């Protein structure tokens, strides 16, 4: 009789442990789900905000090409026309929050610009000397950094090339 009782007790303990464990897991799962739901909402907002990002990023090359075409157009009327098309295009995109990143003459900032080269000159080091590729941001996000050439550091600090 006592043996049976002992067995039942053990069985109950085991079941209680299992129940606790499962309940715990359920709570974690619920919390996890709730967090996921919140995260999902945030993500949705982000998607709405930058829904056009990829499309606009792909269109930037067309903007570049038009801008590049301008100087080499010989007929004044054609030049004017293409310039109008370009401006209109840029205006539409800026309606979605696209803005060119300011560049030449500014101090280099790795959050907005990417250095492709540097040249010795008498300007303040890290001043942007010229823009090789225009950078853009969409609202607050940099979707393409400007590609730039900067003024070289004149004085060399101690250090080594770790590249």
């Amino acid at each position: 009789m006592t043996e049976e009782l002992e067995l039942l007790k053990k069985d109950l303990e085991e079941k209680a442990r299992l129940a606790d464990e499962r309940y715990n897991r359920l709570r974690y799962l619920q919390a996890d789900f709730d967090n996921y739901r919140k995260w999902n909402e945030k993500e949705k907002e982000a998607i709405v905000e930058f829904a056009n990002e990829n499309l606009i990023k792909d269109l930037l090359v067309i903007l570049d090409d038009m801008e590049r075409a301008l100087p080499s157009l010989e007929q004044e009327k054609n030049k004017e026309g293409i310039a109008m098309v370009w401006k209109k295009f840029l205006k539409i995109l800026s309606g979605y929050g696209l803005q060119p990143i300011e560049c030449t003459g500014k101090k280099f900032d790795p959050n907005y610009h990417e250095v492709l080269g540097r040249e010795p000159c008498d300007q303040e080091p890290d001043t942007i000397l010229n823009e090789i590729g225009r950078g853009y941001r969409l609202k607050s996000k940099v979707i393409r950094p400007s590609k730039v050439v900067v003024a070289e550091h004149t004085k060399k600090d101690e250090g080594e090339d770790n590249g």
Partner: protein
Amino acid sequence: MGKEKIIGIDLGTSNSEGAVMLGGKPTIIPSAEGATVAGKMFPSYVAFTPDGQLLVGEPARRQAVSNPEGTVTAAKRKMGTDHVYRIYGKEYTPQQISSFLLQKIKRDAEAFLGEPITKAVITVPAYFNDNQRTATKDAGKIAGLDVVRLVNEPTAASMAYGLDRSGEYKILVFDLGGGTLDVTIMEFGGGTFTVLATSGDTQLGGTDMDTAIFEWIADEFKKLEGIDLRSDKMAVNRVKEAAEKAKIELSTVLDTEINMPYVSATQAGPKHLSMKLTRAKLEQLIEPIIRRCIQPFEQALKDAKLTKNDIQKVILVGGPTRMPVVQKFIEDHVGRKVERGIDPMECVAIGAAIQGAILGGEITDMVLLDVTPLTLGIETLGGVRTTLIERNTTIPTKKSQIFSTAADLQTAVTIHVLQGERPMAADNVSLGQFNLVGIPTAPRGVPQIEVSFDIDASGIINVSAKDLGTGKEQKMTITASTKLAEADVKKMVSEAKQYEEQDKQRKEEVEVRNSADSLVYAAEKTKSDLAGKISSDLIDKVNAAIVGVKAALEGKDTAKIKAELEKLQNVMGEAGSAVYQETARQQARSQAGAPPGNDGDGSPRQETTGPGGEKVVDADFKVKED
């Protein structure tokens, strides 16, 4: 108390990324600076500006050219050595440099999850020795992370593919990254991975491929136009970007156009670059790079004292392994298909996140949430399949819906359980059927029969039908034996796509017939009520319209049924409004406030056709979820 998340980190030589289990699914942690061209990883760059600012990842890479003395890359190669980086008068160990990368991932993870992160699993190359492993753990400590475990990169990759669940096999992991190749041969058995051999090349990777494409474009242009683009920074930048883009595109298409208008200019005017790069040409260009993979591959096999026939699983890691030519090379050399389904650029981080979740108790016995592979439903009037549970629904799940009878005085209904993606019942797989009998006699559409599908965690389906009037219930259980193999599931899904148009048409035909049938029934029933309230002229019109629909229903011309149905709808509408006008006049005379009754066309079927000819689901038949 919320259990703390343990994140997984792939701390790479050229790129790094983190991942975490989110809602039971490994998810890559997005980098705060946004994604790069290649994916969600960020470059493993750390930099200090002359004015003492610390930069990590993308911003550090962007300024590397102007600040080489302040920029550190590939610190992973120096881990475990006593190398010291001297930068602007300060000294840094490789551990410290790595810790800046880990800190960034920690910050990104905290921003992404909205909770503090203090624990991580970090991956290391299989060949890392004790010193290198300790250094990696130290880097974690400096970053404020408790490194609960270090996992070998090939092991993490194998876990991402679920190879740690059962079985015994020898695995070859081919990891071709931006700048390094690692070949690892492992053995899995008894729940553990054992590394048998590693080999590699520290100077071989995707960057070499980009360079090869760039050189080809520049050479071709020179041949064609006599201009060397290499001397023009702007052109070099554009061609490099185009080369990388073309390489990525050619993994999915067979040829691509490289178009760069106004790439250069001479006295004669602007020059445009326009050339076609085929996959075959690309493969020819990178062939020398692929050939360099052979030696490390053979070496690893030799060191493991195995032949390629011993290998049972092949796993690819790294962006360049997405290229069909790289996959083909491996498959040809091993004589075995590679494992697919996980992004090779993400699988190491994903595996680390899975390991983290196991250690954190999130996954105890690898309970993976399952889904129903195919749609489940029942057959309804006219041989139409009505969906109860859609495919890809996560189980366990339960869905109920109320149905009714299709004929007057019907006392039994047949619940025919179907599985498949086709809208017509006959095109789906029958899982079984049963009858619910003893329904009290009533006009059609009146009895309410609740059909419930309940799938438990192991995929067993319980179907029940209950007459809500009498409480009578019938049940049936469908066990795994009646379920389909994976290949069948795929076949059924693709068939459904193939027949989509045709099926839609057939379903519409049946629906039109059902609506017509149902409206005739309703019209006949209400016709007698209308007598005396509307002109006999209008009654004749209703009669004529009913005859018209009935005649059309004898034939098979759906368009004709539709046209006749519309006529009847219009006449009924006319009759209905005439009745309301009459009633309103009477009510105005007596008293106001009596609510207008159902207009008589309340035939409660699955779907009835509204007055405007559009499909409406009768309010009685809303899906009730519990």
